[in-house]
């Protein structure tokens, strides 16, 4: 069963097509990340699902209930039973934490609400209940905003870049805590983000958007491992694009000859992830270390191969060869083949 069905949704602002025929489905209890660069329409998608704006054409079905038909809103936001967490959290500044969390509940429900439980669900100290929003850190504010959205037990939680305003270290922990809480309540979630790490590590399903369209939907492993387009390949992680020629299922490129699956033939582009490239003394291909980016636990070498083609290669942080050194490499696993961009 699906919680959310979006079918053929379009929306234009003047000449800009913010949504250009979006189809998207979220199953019960699933956490789906909509990943894309700024301006790709992901926030417009979320706001349309929430009911803050209409579409031009298309449908949105929430819990088997058509809430947007032919681009027009049929059900007001407050009757859609979705939880909404905006980028800046937007806690009501005049209310304390407890009053923020119970804001959407009826009076009798408010009295009975177990605020402590909700706070604990989000790894927050129950003693925070009487604090004012301005007395909380950014991460705490964001968690309270999620608790507020979950208090009414929505079937779908809409998260609009909720972690982007947080420090890098805080972002990961907050993201994990939020997703754990969402899973504990059994709600589904739609997480809009431009951060690929966030999308890959938190979501069950990643939908990559570009220029108002969903270009690929799949499990994180699939989207990363088998990107559907060069855009997805380069936006979700890094890698090297190398020219190759395929004859009878074998690709011939500067990084060697190897078999590829699929129907492609002739001149193509090969896409290789840095971790697929290995330093290998027995490797057939020779390369020069042009430079490297060091991250501590690992490093990414910029190798110069053949006629000045750049190949990225991930190595352990304690195995970084010196600049200018000659190395031999081999490629592990299947390269992704794209038709040559003309």
């Amino acid at each position: 069963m699906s919680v959310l069905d979006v079918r053929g949704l379009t929306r234009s602002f003047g000449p800009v097509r913010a949504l250009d025929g979006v189809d998207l489905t979220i199953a019960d209890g699933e956490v789906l990340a909509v990943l894309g660069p700024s301006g790709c329409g992901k926030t417009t998608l979320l706001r349309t699902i929430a009911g803050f704006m209409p579409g031009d054409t298309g449908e949105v079905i929430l819990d088997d209930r058509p809430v947007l038909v032919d681009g027009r809103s049929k059900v007001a936001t407050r009757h859609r039973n979705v939880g909404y967490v905006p980028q800046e959290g937007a806690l009501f500044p005049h209310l304390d934490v407890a009053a923020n969390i119970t804001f959407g509940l009826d009076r009798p429900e408010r009295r009975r609400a177990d605020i402590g439980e909700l706070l604990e669900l989000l790894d927050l100290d129950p003693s925070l209940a009487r604090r004012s929003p301005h007395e909380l850190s950014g991460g705490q504010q964001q968690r309270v905003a999620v608790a507020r959205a979950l208090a009414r037990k929505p079937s779908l939680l809409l998260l609009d870049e909720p972690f982007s305003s947080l420090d890098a270290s805080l972002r990961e922990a907050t993201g994990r805590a939020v997703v754990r809480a969402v899973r504990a309540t059994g709600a589904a979630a739609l997480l809009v983000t431009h951060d690929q790490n966030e999308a890959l590590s938190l979501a069950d399903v990643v939908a990559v958007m570009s220029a108002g369209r969903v270009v690929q939907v799949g499990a994180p492993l699939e989207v990363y491992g088998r990107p559907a387009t060069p855009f997805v390949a380069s936006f979700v992680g890094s890698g090297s694009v190398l020219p190759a020629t395929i004859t009878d299922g074998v690709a011939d490129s500067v990084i060697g000859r190897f078999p590829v699956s699929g129907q492609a033939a002739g001149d193509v582009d090969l896409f290789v992830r840095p971790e697929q490239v290995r330093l290998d003394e027995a490797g057939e291909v020779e390369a020069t270390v042009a430079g490297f980016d060091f991250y501590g636990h690992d490093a990414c070498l910029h190798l110069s191969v053949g006629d000045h083609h750049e190949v990225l290669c991930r190595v352990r942080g304690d195995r970084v060869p010196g600049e200018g050194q000659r190395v031999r490499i081999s490629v592990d696993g299947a390269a992704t083949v794209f038709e040559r961009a003309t």
Partner: protein
Amino acid sequence: MTTTVDPPRTSRRVHDGAPVALLLIGVAVALFALIPLLHVVQYAATVDPDTAREQLFRPRIGMLLRNTLGLMVACVATSVVVSVACAWLVVRTDLPLAGLWHVLLTAPLAVPAFVNGFGWVSLTHSVEGFGGAVMIVTLSYFPFVYLPVCAALRGLDPSHEEIAASVGLTRAATFLRVVMPQLRPAILGGSLLVALHMFSEFGALKTLRFPTFTTAIYDQFNTTFNGPAAHLSSALLVLLCLVVLLVELRLRGRRRYARTSSGSPRTADRAGLGRLRWPALAVPAAVTCLALGVPIYSLVHWMQVGSSTGNGLDQLVPTAVTTVSYAAAGALLSVVLALPVGLLVVRHPSLAGTLVERSTYTANALPGIVVALALITVTIEYATGLYQTAIVLVAAYLIMFMSRAVVSVRASLEQAPPVLESVARSLGVSGLATTWRVTVPIVMPGIGAGAALVFIAISTELTATLLLAPLETKTLATEFWSQSSALAYGAAAPYALLMIVISMPAVYLLSRTTQGQRPGRSVLP
């Protein structure tokens, strides 16, 4: 680190455009606020050139121009010196009792300038003339510079000064080359207010027998009923205000002094004054004594020894009731007028909205005497029945002080961004309930503060009230004025003290709210 973010959510509201009804109401409010200016422009455009030449090219006009400009320049200069010195001591040094001095240095705003002038003149006639006028106008209006400079000093990024120290600048050089330039917008904004208030000042300068355009217009109108002369001087005064506004804009320039990094700013360390710590107290103590001590001592003194003490005390309560009624009505109506303007500017940003908002500010720059004169002429010409009624007086108050309410309403509406309403709707709350439970509680304190500022301004207003009040109407200010003009010092004093008491709470509020503000954005009138 920088993260890319989708375009601001509010931008979609620009496409929506403002609702027509709201826009129409806004335009109506703007036109109302522009009545005096339009009147002056229309008069100046249609006046007979010969009459104008005859009236303007007189030695007396030259004298008034010299007096007005000279006083303006001197008052601005002394206000800046006093304010920067006091603000630096209070905000950036370990001066004992800094918090108390901050309140006391704001408090002169609660003493109307004409009360201050009376306080001094009734003790010594040596303050009459230019020197005394400079001192008393400065003592009455320097907080307009002091408050924004304090806010700017608090908002300074301490790392700028640390960088200056790291490249070898002395403390004094750091102050001149790093701190002062960043205080510029605050100093300019405050100086503008001092200049405009000095241009409008009638009571104090009349008391000190120092003629300026404003006192001259009053005399021309009230004693000789010399219409053309009053109107031409009034046009000239508006021109002066305009020049000052333009000069300020020009000097302020387009440069921005914003913090460029993200993260919450640190507050700068306070400098140790060392052996000068206690002697430094002399500066704020002297200013406080002159600005607050002398007038209050004088009022109390005359209440004890004045021969007229006790006279007309039975009039005190009815006069206070009349004053409070006018002030309350004006405060309430100004908020009613300010709300559509604020909504237009904050929720539906557009050029039209900005123009409407700016229109409500223009009247604030016009001296009360100009507003009063314009309303008299306009009512006599177009609505004779309204002449010398409470309606015209309240209209003058609204035109003069509405901008204070607009500033507050605008700032408080910005505290309630639309995203809060979106969240409330996603939580299943209806539109009306959202307004009641989210928007109203958030904006109410700010709107209340705006209403309080208008209330105070009206309860101490003298010039326009003298000219426009219905015959039998007496306010605290006019009653004080007529008693003190009749040399009944003892009878006048209680009215002045009551005005000070009424003003105190709002001034205290002002000393609190300006903390932590960014330079250049002042809630001051």
